[in-house]
């Protein structure tokens, strides 16, 4: 840029092309600066308000939504996990209780069976005992009878051996008397 023309065209630039005083205070340039500033501001404002700001606001809202959704989902999953754990604990407790009940029932059954078997055995034993006792008393009775018979026979034989003819009736009576005494 030729310095001489600049010197001609502006009162704020000297012949050597350098500023005279503060260029900021050169009123010649104010309209130009103000005009382009207004244009610039309007363009920036339109760009921002029409395109950029709605877009960024939408993105921020979307992100906020995604974050709160994710947090809600995480909360939900956490609750589900807690529920599952609770259910598991409950199932475990139930199973344990059932096992205990089954064991108890089995124990009771076994006890009842044992008792029944014992009773049956007792009854059998008692029966057997009674039977045996009867047999013994029978044997004893028959033995007594046999003893009586043997005594009578022996007495008759003794009497005969002593050379006497004994009356069978008298011998029986005598033996009976002796047996009672």
């Amino acid at each position: 840029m030729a310095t001489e023309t600049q010197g001609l065209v502006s009162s704020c630039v000297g012949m050597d092309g350098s500023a005279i005083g503060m260029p900021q205070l050169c009123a010649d340039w104010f309209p130009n600066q103000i005009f382009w500033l207004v244009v610039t501001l309007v363009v920036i404002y339109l760009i921002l308000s029409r395109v950029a700001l709605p877009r960024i606001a939408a993105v921020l809202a979307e992100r906020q939504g995604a974050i709160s959704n994710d947090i809600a989902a995480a909360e939900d999953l956490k609750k589900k996990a807690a529920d599952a754990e609770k259910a598991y604990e409950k199932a475990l407790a139930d199973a344990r209780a059932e096992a205990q009940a089954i064991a108890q029932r089995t124990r009771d059954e076994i006890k009842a069976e044992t008792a029944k078997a014992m009773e049956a055995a007792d009854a059998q034993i008692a029966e057997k005992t009674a039977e045996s006792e009867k047999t013994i008393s029978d044997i004893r009775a028959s033995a007594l009878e046999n003893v009586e018979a043997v005594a009578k026979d022996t007495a008759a034989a003794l009497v005969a051996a002593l050379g006497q003819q004994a009356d069978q009736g008298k011998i029986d009576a005598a033996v009976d008397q002796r047996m009672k005494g």
Partner: protein
Amino acid sequence: MATEEVTGESGGLVFHPMDQFIVEPLFGTGSVGMFTITNVTLWMALAVLCILALMVLGTSKRAVIPSRSQSVAELAYGFIYKMVEDVTGKEGIKYFPYIFTLFLYIVFANFLGLIPTAFTTTSHFAVTVVLALAVFLAVTILGFVLNGTKFLYLFWPTSAPLAIRPVLMIIELISYFVRPVSHSIRLAGNLMAGHAVIKVFAGFAALVAVSPLAVLGIVAMYGLEILVAFIQAYVFTILTCVYLKDALHPHH
């Protein structure tokens, strides 16, 4: 742009720290009219393109899990949105697009201005005064539209004793009308000063004896300017929010 011409033969130093702020036509050498395409146009257009790239192209995927550029766009959005909400309350949210426009324009203009040989549009009072006046007028009109004459209670602090209220009113009035001045000069002044100081250091770099120091100074100033570029955009934006709060809730 030969802004740092050093007249080699004489060994003297020539400083033109303000030449970087000259507005000139991009094409040809005519005078700078209202609609002339100038370096102002170029750097404002670059700011618009950067904003377009970040906020539109960067977010074009609309991903729930953001890419890097989308992440930055969302960060900027969230940063200013939260600022508007915190300072002005829920009622201020509907002015968020304009406040965000201001922030993005200033922050991109500031950072683009840090590119060597760039033109910093926000270092010009014409620009920042328009920005600040727009905020000032909008806040004042909005204050009267939303609150009617009750907006004037902003200058009549009923919580103070009656005797000192007139004094306070004068102070409040002055501070209210100084707002656009401080609002605009703070931004342009900070940027202009920083950029000019870098140029002064650059001028010293022509002297062999002090050139290492000068380069070090440029690096240090550049680091500071990066901070300033962001902080001034932030300050401008948060002050806009604070002023807007006055229009929305004048009595508190």
